[in-house]
């Protein structure tokens, strides 16, 4: 034994092995027609989405001043819609590209051949993941013309574009890692593909459903009263039971219209200070929701991760359009901020939480947490898959064979 142990170490570098597996995978994929058909279908669908977005936002209206004006927000709305659809379709395509890699080799009888070379399980997984990821990135590349189209309207917030591309690539990579991990773990290709779709659905839909259902758990009954801004001309108006405006003595004001016009003029010159309110005398019961306790449920949602990570124009800047991704980011951060906006007056007392108009955008970013959760899930699945690829095999799952 000792005499033979001095034999040379088998020479296959980690990167060389990964590279060869990667080349084997990509060459096979590049030679199947289905992949190209999928790319063309993808291009057409994303193109249609972009065109509809352009139409809906009025970009095609005649330039008569009422329609498209440069910088009016059309490009941004379109850009965000394209983001959302690229991500949505990517979540549909990436599992299909990744979940058949290892299990497909297993059923074709080629996995054992690879395992019998100097490749380590890690190299097999890394090569297959890289191949799946690169082929899913091709779909991102095909979507670029639509992004450029949106940018031609001149109002896309430029720092958002590279961040969007990077984060989408990262999300594709995570989904591919999940797919490859499940694929290595699963006995059958169909099972691997379905499981990967379910895991992706868990992230994309399950998180939203869990968030929605959890509202029950964080509901709280509180006594609230109306906010009153004493300096606001409208809050000085008093009404009788019939809904008519009355003066200080309770007499109905004769010319209601003239009175309201006058109040409106006063209100127009009044600048509201959001924090200069008092709590009204009338109290009533209301439900408030501690959404800050459940917003983390949304963190791992790929849409939330991208919406939250992609920067938007500072709200103090010139008014521009904002699309669905921005709205999603605002909503999530508002949810994370929790109570302040929901019940400014509790038990007749003013809550000492400053309410600012843009509380949403000031909230802490949620996407790092979401990315971490996703990475942990992918790493766990890859680890489980790697264990299944180790040879010599000790325990073989029922109904499977090595070769």
């Amino acid at each position, binding site marked *: 034994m000792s005499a*033979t142990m001095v034999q040379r170490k088998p020479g*296959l570098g980690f990167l060389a092995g990964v590279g060869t597996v990667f080349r084997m995978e990509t*060459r096979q994929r590049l030679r199947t027609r289905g992949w190209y058909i999928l790319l063309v279908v993808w291009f057409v669908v994303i193109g249609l989405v972009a065109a509809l977005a352009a139409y809906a936002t009025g970009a095609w209206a005649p330039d008569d001043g009422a329609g498209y004006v440069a910088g009016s927000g059309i490009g941004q709305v379109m850009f965000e819609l394209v983001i959302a659809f690229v991500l949505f379709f990517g979540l549909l395509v990436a599992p299909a590209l990744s979940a058949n890699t290892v299990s497909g080799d297993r059923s074709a009888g080629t996995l054992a051949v690879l395992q*019998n070379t100097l490749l380590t399980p890690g190299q097999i997984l890394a090569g297959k993941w890289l191949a799946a990821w690169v082929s899913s990135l091709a779909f991102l590349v095909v979507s670029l013309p639509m992004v450029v189209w949106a940018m031609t309207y001149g109002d896309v917030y430029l720092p958002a574009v590279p961040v969007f591309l990077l984060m989408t690539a990262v999300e594709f990579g995570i989904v591919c890692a999940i797919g490859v991990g499940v694929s290595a773990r699963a006995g059958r290709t169909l099972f691997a593909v379905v499981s990967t779709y379910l895991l992706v659905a868990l992230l994309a839909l399950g998180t939203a459903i869990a968030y929605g259902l959890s509202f029950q758990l964080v509901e709280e009954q509180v006594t609230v009263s109306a906010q009153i801004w004493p300096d606001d001309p409208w809050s000085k108006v008093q009404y009788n039971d019939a809904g008519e405006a009355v003066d200080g003595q309770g007499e109905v004001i004769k010319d209601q219209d003239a009175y309201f016009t006058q109040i409106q003029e006063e209100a127009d010159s009044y600048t509201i200070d959001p924090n200069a309110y008092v709590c009204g005398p009338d109290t009533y019961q209301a439900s408030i929701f501690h959404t800050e306790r459940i917003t983390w449920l949304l963190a791992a949602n790929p849409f939330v991760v991208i919406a939250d990570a992609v920067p938007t124009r500072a709200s103090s800047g010139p008014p521009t359009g904002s699309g669905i991704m921005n709205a999603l980011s605002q909503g999530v951060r508002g949810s994370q901020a929790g109570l302040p906006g929901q019940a400014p007056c509790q038990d007749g007392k003013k809550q000492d939480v400053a309410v600012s108009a843009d509380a949403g955008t000031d909230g802490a970013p949620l996407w790092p947490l979401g990315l971490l959760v996703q990475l942990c899930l992918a790493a766990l699945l890859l680890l489980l898959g790697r264990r299944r690829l180790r040879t*010599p*095999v000790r325990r073989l799952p029922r109904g499977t064979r*090595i070769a």
Partner: protein
Amino acid sequence: MGIQTTRYDGGGPAFAHPEPLGVVATGLVRSFGTVHAVEAIDFTARPGEVTALIGPNGSGKTTLLLMLASLLAPDAGSIRICGIDPVADPRGVRAQLGWMPDTLGVWEELTVHEILAMMGRLYGASKASAAARADELLGIVKLAEFASRPARVLSRGQQQRLSLARALVHDPQVLLLDEPASGLDPGARIDLRNLLRDLADRGRTVVVSSHVLVELDEMADRAVFIAAGRSVSELTVDDAGARQRRYSIQSTDPAALAAELSAAGVQASVADGQRRKPTVVRLESETAAAELLRRLVLAGVPVTAFGPSAGALEESYVSSVGPAATDQAGGTR
């Protein structure tokens, strides 16, 4: 079908094996759940020999080969491939070992040459030497004209030859072939036989499992019989020839033949199962066979055919494996 001895930079220098040890497996046990695929197998294959692994379907041949190929861990027992333990150092074993599985697995969209070149790369060869080795192997297995065709267009026999070339890509010291002859046409079988003999003559350890016993007769030096997960016997092909065997005799005058056989005191029976109904006798050795033939001819019996009714290994197979195989089929394990 000579083998050029191109040095293969991924396979290491030939003098790295001062003491070539071949394959030594002792006391192997392996079960899958309640199925005891291998119950007690001892197996030895020596360098410079072609060792046949013979046994009925389900006797544990493939399970044994998977364990030898470092893909399956035995429940008990020990394996040494060139002195290396595949459980402790699978990659060390794989550098020395070529394995041709019984299931055909090919990367359908890759070309024949690409498959061999990439496999070479996976054993650590440089790009250039892997490509050169692929060319060389395609010549050896006579697939050169298919080099740039995708593997999916190959026939079963061609895929089988590609699989064999793949197992040889790193010029392994030990070659494990699971049913290599199935699907091959007669010409390719002869090529395979010559190739394996050639490899053995160059000091490689060659293990072949097969049902085609006549094939093994002609190329194997040694045979290991297994049945129902146990090694039943081991013998050299020369031993097998020296054993008691059946001979079939045909004559244009069956009555004269029968009379002379009974006069010689040889028990004879007529094989019903065969088309020409030869007379079958059981003889102790080849010397006894020669003696009987001389007597028949001298007695004027018109003998048209006289020869062993089956190959030496088939005889041994039936005598050593037969009862156990029947036993296995009857019992539920």
